[in-house]
C-alpha cells in the first residue's frame, strides 16, 4: 500500500514483527508528513526505546503483583486481595501511594547526590536492556560489542549504590552501601568469567550472534543451547547464582536486609525516589536474566522444532517468565545468608568453578572439532562433576563455620 512517498508494508503486521510495529508506524507517519530523513530515524529510535522501556515497566508492575501473590501462596497467605479483582489493581495503588508520599531529604544529607543516587540506579538498567536480542529481528541496538557494553554499564550501578548510601548521611545506608558494593564486586567476577566461556565458544561479543550460534537441534529434538553442554551447564549454574547476587535478590539480599540494617542504602529515601530504587532493581533483574537467557538458554530460539511457527520474541519472554519464577521460588525458599558465607561462597566456590569452565570449554571445542561427540562428553564431564562435588563437600564440611558455630545465647 502506497501512501505519500513511503511504502506501508503488510509484512510489518506479521506476528514476528509486532514488537517493531510501533517503530515502523511512527517512521511511516513522520515520513508521511514530509519531514527530513534524519528526523525520521530519530523518531524511530525514540519509539524503539519507548517500546523497550514501556514493555519492561509494564512487566515490572505485573511482577510486583505476581511476586507478592507467589510469596503469599508459598507462605500460605492470601497476599494482596483488596485493590480490584483478586488484587489486580495493587500495582496502581502502590504507584499512587509512592507518587503522593512526601519526599524527605535528611538534614545531614548531600541533597544533590541524594537526588542523583536513585536516578543513577535506573539508567544503567535501561541501557543494558537496549542491547538484548528479544527476537529474531528485534534487537533495539545491535552492537558488535553488546556483551562488553552490558558489563560496562553495569559498573555504573556500584557507583550509584555508593552515592545513594553515602549521600544519605547516616549509618545504615552507609553499611548497606558497603555490603552492596563488596557483594557486587565479588559476584561480578564469576558472572563475567562464566560469560567468557560462552564468548570463547561462539567467538563473538555480539549478543545476536551468540544466540544464532545456539541454533539447531541434536538428534532432531534436543536444542543446542549452551546450557545443554557440560561446560555450559557448569558456567550457566554459576552465572545464574551470580545473577541472583548481582540483582540483590534473596538469599543474597544482604545490602537491604530488612531485619538487619533497615533497608540498606534505601533507608533515607521515601516517595518516588524510593520507587525508583525498586524500578532500577527490577529492571536490573530483567536485564541480567535476559542476558542469562541470551548466553545459556538460546535466547529467542524455540525449544522444539515443531514450535518454530510461534514468533521468536514469544519464546524469549516465555523463558524470561520461567527464569523470573525460579528466582521468586528461590526467594520464597531460602533463608538469607550471612555476609561471611556470602563472600566465602563467591571466592572459594563460584570463581574456581567459573575458571574451570574455561579449560572445559576449550577441551569441548577441540573434541567437537574432531567430530567426536562421545569423546567430548567423556573428557569434559569429570571436569564438571568432580569440582562441583568436591567443592560442595568441602564447603559443607570444612570451610563453612556454620557447622562449628556455637550459639551462645540461643541454647
Amino acid at each position, binding site marked *: 500500500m502506497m501512501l505519500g512517498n513511503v511504502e506501508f508494508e503488510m509484512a510489518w503486521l506479521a506476528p514476528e514483527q509486532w514488537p517493531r510495529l510501533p517503530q515502523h508506524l511512527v517512521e511511516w507517519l513522520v515520513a508521511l508528513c514530509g519531514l527530513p530523513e534524519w528526523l525520521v530515524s530519530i523518531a524511530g529510535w525514540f519509539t524503539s526505546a519507548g517500546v523497550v522501556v514501556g514493555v519492561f515497566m509494564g512487566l515490572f508492575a505485573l511482577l510486583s503483583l505476581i511476586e507478592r501473590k507467589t510469596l503469599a501462596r508459598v507462605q500460605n497467605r492470601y497476599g494482596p486481595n483488596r485493590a480490584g479483582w483478586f488484587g489486580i489493581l495493587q500495582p496502581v495503588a502502590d504507584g499512587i501511594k509512592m507518587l503522593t508520599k512526601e519526599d524527605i531529604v535528611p538534614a545531614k544529607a548531600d541533597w544533590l547526590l541524594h537526588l542523583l543516587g536513585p536516578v543513577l540506579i535506573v539508567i544503567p538498567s535501561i541501557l543494558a536492556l537496549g542491547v538484548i536480542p528479544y527476537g529474531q529481528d528485534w534487537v533495539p541496538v545491535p552492537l558488535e560489542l553488546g556483551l562488553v557494553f552490558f*558489563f*560496562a554499564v553495569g559498573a555504573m550501578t556500584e*557507583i550509584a549504590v555508593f552515592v545513594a548510601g553515602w549521600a544519605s548521611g547516616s549509618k545504615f545506608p552507609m553499611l548497606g552501601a558497603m555490603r552492596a558494593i563488596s557483594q557486587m564486586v565479588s559476584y561480578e567476577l564469576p558472572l563475567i568469567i562464566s560469560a567468557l566461556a560462552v564468548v570463547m565458544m561462539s567467538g563473538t561479543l555480539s549478543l545476536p550472534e551468540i544466540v544464532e550460534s545456539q541454533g539447531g537441534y541434536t538428534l532432531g529434538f534436543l536444542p543446542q543451547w549452551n546450557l545443554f553442554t557440560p561446560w555450559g551447564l557448569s558456567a550457566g549454574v554459576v552465572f545464574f547464582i551470580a545473577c541472583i547476587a548481582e540483582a540483590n535478590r534473596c538469599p543474597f539480599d544482604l545490602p537491604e536486609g530488612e531485619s538487619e540494617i533497615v533497608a540498606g542504602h534505601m533507608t533515607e529515601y521515601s516517595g518516588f525516589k524510593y520507587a525508583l530504587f525498586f524500578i532500577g532493581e527490577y529492571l536490573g533483574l530483567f536485564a541480567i536474566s535476559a542476558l542469562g537467557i541470551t548466553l545459556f538458554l538460546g535466547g529467542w530460539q524455540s525449544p522444539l522444532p515443531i514450535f518454530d511457527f510461534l514468533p521468536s520474541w514469544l519464546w524469549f519472554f516465555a523463558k524470561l517468565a520461567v527464569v523470573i519464577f525460579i528466582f521468586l521460588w528461590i526467594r520464597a525458599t531460602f533463608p538469607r545468608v550471612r555476609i561471611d558465607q556470602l563472600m566465602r561462597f563467591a571466592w572459594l566456590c563460584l570463581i574456581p568453578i567459573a575458571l574451570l569452565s574455561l579449560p572445559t570449554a576449550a577441551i569441548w571445542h577441540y573434541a567437537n572439532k574432531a567430530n567426536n561427540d562421545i569423546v567430548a562428553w567423556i573428557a569434559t564431564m569429570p571436569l564438571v562433576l568432580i569440582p562441583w562435588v568436591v567443592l560442595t563437600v568441602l564447603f559443607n564440611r570444612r570451610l563453612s563455620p556454620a557447622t*562449628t558455630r556455637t550459639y551462645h545465647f540461643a541454647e
Partner: protein
Amino acid sequence: MIPLLILTPAILLAAIGAAWKARPVHAALLLALCLSLVGCLYVAMGAHFIGLVQFSVYVGAVAILIVFSLLITRPSDDDEEKVRRMKTGMPALACSLPLLVMLGFTMFKQSALLEAPADEPAMSLKVLGEILFTDYAPAVLAMAVLLTAVMIGAALFAREPSKKPEPPSDS
C-alpha cells in the same frame, strides 16, 4: 569534532574539580565522572572497545576501589581537610607541572595528532585479539598469571585464620 569540543572541557572541569574539592568523597566521584567522560570520548572517536573497557575497568574497578577505601577509613572533618589541602597543594602542583608541560609540548610538536585521521582505522576487535594472542602472547600470559596469583592471594588474605571463635563478652 563536536563531541570532542563538548567532552574535552567537561573532562577538564571534572578533573580540576576532583583535584580541588575539599571532601574526599566528592573528589572521588568527580574522578569517576572524569574517567567515564574519557570513556565517552573514546566511544565518540570510534574506539568502542577501549571506551567500554575504560568504563568497566576505571569506573567499575578503580573508582570503586577508591570509594571503598574512603568508606572503610572514616574521613576527617572538613576544616582539617582544608588545612591539609593547603599543605599538599604546592607539592602537588610542583609534581604535576612538568607532566603538563611535557604533554603540551608533545601535543604541539606533533600537530598531526590534532588532525582527524583520513579514514577509519582498520583495526577490528578480531584483529586486535589475534595480535594480542600471537605477537603479544607472552605479555598477555604473564599478565594473566600475575592477575590469577593476585586473585588467589586476595582470597587467601581475606580468609580468616582457622581458630575457634571466642565467645562474645556480654558486658
